[in-house]
């Protein structure tokens, strides 16, 4: 199990991620992402390509080779950066119980 737990102290990193989901990250954000993207999930978010470079479906990949990929109905993306933001919000909710958009203090 990962040691690092995401708390309200990570709001700044959440804000940083929403600015720039892909590319250079502060060490603090990288640590948040390592927790979110690491091995501690029985189901992991993945993007199933519907049309290459155009359309992706959100899905979950259960642990275990050969497990059935579970499509999350109704969630499609036309942009990978938007997909990253949405997956970040979902994981924030999964790990803290909080809705990120509501919880994130509006001031910086």
């Amino acid at each position, binding site marked *: 199990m990962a040691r690092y737990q995401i708390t309200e102290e990570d709001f700044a990193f959440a804000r940083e991620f929403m600015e720039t*989901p*892909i*590319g*250079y*990250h502060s*060490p603090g954000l*990288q640590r948040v*992402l*390592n927790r979110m*993207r*690491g*091995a501690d*999930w029985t189901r*992991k*978010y*993945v*993007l*199933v*390509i519907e049309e*290459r*470079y155009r359309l*992706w479906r959100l*899905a979950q*990949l259960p642990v275990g*080779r*050969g*497990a*059935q*990929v579970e499509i999350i109905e109704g969630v499609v993306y036309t942009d*990978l950066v938007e*997909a*990253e933001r949405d*997956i970040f919000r979902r994981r924030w909710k999964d790990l803290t119980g909080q809705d990120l958009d509501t919880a994130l203090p509006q001031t910086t």
Partner: protein
Amino acid sequence: MLPIVGYTNKLTAEPGETVDVMVSSFGAKTYSADLRQIIQGDTNPEGPGYKDHLITLDLGGTRTAISKPFKPGSCVIVPGLGALPAIQDFTLAAVVRPTLLDGRRRSIVALPGLAEIAIDGDGHLTGQAGDTALVSSVKLSTKHWHVVSLSYDARRELLSLAIARDRDEASTPPRAHIVSTKAVLAARVPSECIIAATRGADGELTAFLDGKVDRPALFDTCLEPDTIRTLLTDFALLRRQRSLLAAWDFSRRMTSRTICDISPFQMHGHIHNAPARAMTGWLWKGQELDWKLRPDLYSAIHFHATDMYDAGWDVDFTLTIPSDLKSGVYAVRLVPDGDEDSAYFCVFAVRPPRDRPSGNTVAFLFPTCSYMAYANHRLGMDVPGTEIGMGRAVELDRHHMFLQNNPGIGFSVYETHDDESGVFHTSRLRPIVDMQPKVKSFLGGFGSNIWQFNADTHILGWLDAIGQNHDVITDEDMHADGLTLLQRYNVVITGTHPEYYTRNMIEALQGFTDRGGRLMYLGGNGFYWVVSFNEDMPGIMECRRSEAGIRPWEPGHGQFYHGFTGEYGGLWRRNDHPPNHLCGVGMTSQGFDVSEPYVLSDNATDPRAAFIFDGISGPGIGNFGLAGGGAAGLEVDRADPAQGTPDHALVLAFSVRHTDIYLMTPEDLLDPTPDWSGTQADIIRADLTFFETEGGGAVFSTGSIAWAGAMAWNNYDNEVARMTHNVLRRFNEETPFDFPGGQGW
């Protein structure tokens, strides 16, 4: 998903040669086939656009698509036991160490229809002879060796099953647990012996073992467990026993398919689906680490229910390569039920004729060993950390979904078997679903996200765009023909990631540049791992990831030498052929998110390199691209005199930062501290490197997988493509390069 899938029996063929095509339906009812030259496979709308050429060749119209299964699982098959006399009393014995007990029934040794020793779903040892079954109260352990035996005494009408576990750590002598039952068995002649599997009622192989088996033997008398143990420890004693019908010593002819019987009957067999040989056996206690010096200690075979060598599908059709077809990369395209969008591409190279040069002086070296190493890899599905390395969510393309649903297709050398031991072998005698144009990948960076074959089509597309005549030769061609093939060319151009090399290949390419050849290494993490072919099993390749390197598994203690050749597995830099000798740079770091430009160094103004910079200013180059948005990235190499970079090599440009996903390779990270990352450590960079050789040759290395993705930017009209063309133009001139001797750095 993939309604139709296929493979060819070779990845390289010359004009006039025949190629067999094996096809299976995964939903398609019919298919039609055509032959296409693959020019550029990336379908990213930001890229130069997909391009192939239809070759006019009748491949036979519409065919019925027949479903053909994958049949993984390795074992030993010894046919011909019918020549033995009928067996009344008998003892069947073996030494076994299972490596996975997961509820499935596993066979250890079987005389199908006559007798079998197996492991039941609960992990108990079981024995069966005729209709009589025995179950031991003892469970097998994945941590220990066990001597197991099933014996029948006709006079006493007694069938006995015995197991003794070797418990080194308890320092107590192993003690056999025996379970017996009354049985009346008729004398019978066995037909075959199967080790690590058996046959089901349908005659198909089944109940594959994940685990090691050592020295199985068959006697025509009922032996006590202690006697069995004594005999099995001493082959010299064993082979003289009058009661011996067969004893298979797996340490003989380990580099081949053959399994040797040391009894006078000489009931030799063969392996099926290429299990791992030259593996530490029952008596290995660390006495020696090289199986060549003590083969007797390497008498185990490690079997896996997931091993796959030859899919063995029936041939659908055979095509003859037209005698006037120019060398290039081609694919038999299989179109299921008229649905072009679902077409499957069986990719292979048409090499130039063997008996005469084509006249082309430029060769693209099609890295089939690296394609095989990654064949059907599952990094994004099996390895959770892949998402961290990518810096974004894993994308699953259609072929990934197919792999997820069809693990029986067999693995790449990036996977582990179900028992978590490393996959040593990969084969091309099965579909390689990621070796197709159009397919996306996991590691190709933000942008096109393509890898290996499809990424290499950025280079093929560039050669097409500049109208450069060239041959395509494969790793297998270079392995087989060496310098006799390479000497036809002024210039050899690599792919984006030529990572896996046999000794023949690395020596041929070194000999080429030593003797005046010009090498354009347009990739990263090249010439890194030692791989071996097997002289007895065409189409299979071995890789044991010993000691260092970024790797998904270790081969296990005492198992660092390849079974196919006896070569020491691992990195070429540990085998006196560091990539730095060949190309001036060697692997330093990897990250699969974003890439960077290079910044010109002072060496860029060196007159020796003037031809490279014709029309190119600086200070940065390659701040764009389809692979992570820069020319330097994904996997990057550095120049390093300590690793063998020639003193006179010129580092013309280098990347000056990478994200913190880029960390240090383990071979250079002897003492891990948290400063070895892309935003902090200078050593994490791609070095664009040039040097001349004493023989008038020259080497240009990009040290970056992302380079070709930058070449393809803006329809191949950019400074990275221009620089590559500058190099190619000069490299393709006969005029020898002057060797600057000890100048430079």
